């Protein structure tokens, strides 16, 4: 069992790194890009003994307590078989 976790800045939080990347992309000639936001991506491999429900609960806790800072970030979890 695998889980993917995506951590992104909350929409209300400014993302200066995303803005700088957006600017570079525009310099490359892509003028049609409305916005770029930077985030983090984690691949978590779980032991085979873990079932899907348990995996969801465990990864939810890891995402909430470690991977994301809830003051500034949101997260999204995908459980992949």
């Amino acid at each position, binding site marked *: 069992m695998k889980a993917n976790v995506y951590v992104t800045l909350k929409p*209300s*939080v*400014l993302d*200066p*790194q995303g803005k*700088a990347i957006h600017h570079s992309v525009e310099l490359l000639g892509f003028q049609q890009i409305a916005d770029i936001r930077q985030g983090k991506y984690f691949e978590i491999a779980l032991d085979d003994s873990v079932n899907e429900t348990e995996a969801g609960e465990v990864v939810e806790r890891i995402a909430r307590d*470690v*991977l994301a*800072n809830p*003051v*500034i970030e949101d997260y999204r979890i995908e459980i992949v078989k």
Partner: protein
Amino acid sequence: MKFGVVVFPGSNCDHDAYHVISKHVGQPVDFIWHKETDLSGFDAVIVPGGFSYGDYLRAGALARFSPVMKSVKDFAAEGKFVFGICNGFQILCESGLLPGALMRNAGLNFVCRHVNIRTENQYTPFTNELELGNVLSIPIAHAEGNYTCDDATYDLLEENNQIVFRYCDENGEITQESNPNGARANIAGICNQDRNVLGMMPHPERACEELLGSNDGRNIFRSLTNAIAAVEA
């Protein structure tokens, strides 16, 4: 009276803090390795600057899980003094000892220079030697010092007078130009509601000697010494 300076893998201002406490404050001080959990005997704990755990994941995010941090939380809950400087401030925010978060500087660059900060609350254990509006020249050195919090948290900080220092110009005016990192409302340092935990991005331990360009940091350490003496009395 005894000070402790926490040492994480990657701390690099621990010796500066130790030097200032022993040489300029003239008080006993010990290093506390991050795996230690016994803080009995200490009156104040400094969480120093640096790059704990290489700033992996987020600045301060992994140091929060070091064994010593549980003890630091209990220590703070007992009303004892905890002082987070730079990376220490980031760690205190990640640990939930202080509200808010420190994000990447708005200008994206690592900023390393002297800044001016204005004393916004002189009634804390860390500022009792200062007067409201006193301007201090203290260096900063960080890439993630952009203090942020939601509106509700900000209102609470204002209401409880928890904003202790703001970036200002040399005349003490709070201006956008004097904000080195985009921090909300020029916030350079905040305390908790009980006033016994302070976090600040500028480095007062690097401003305790004329040779280094400023003595202003001594006011903060002297204040803390007064506060500890008052508790002991």
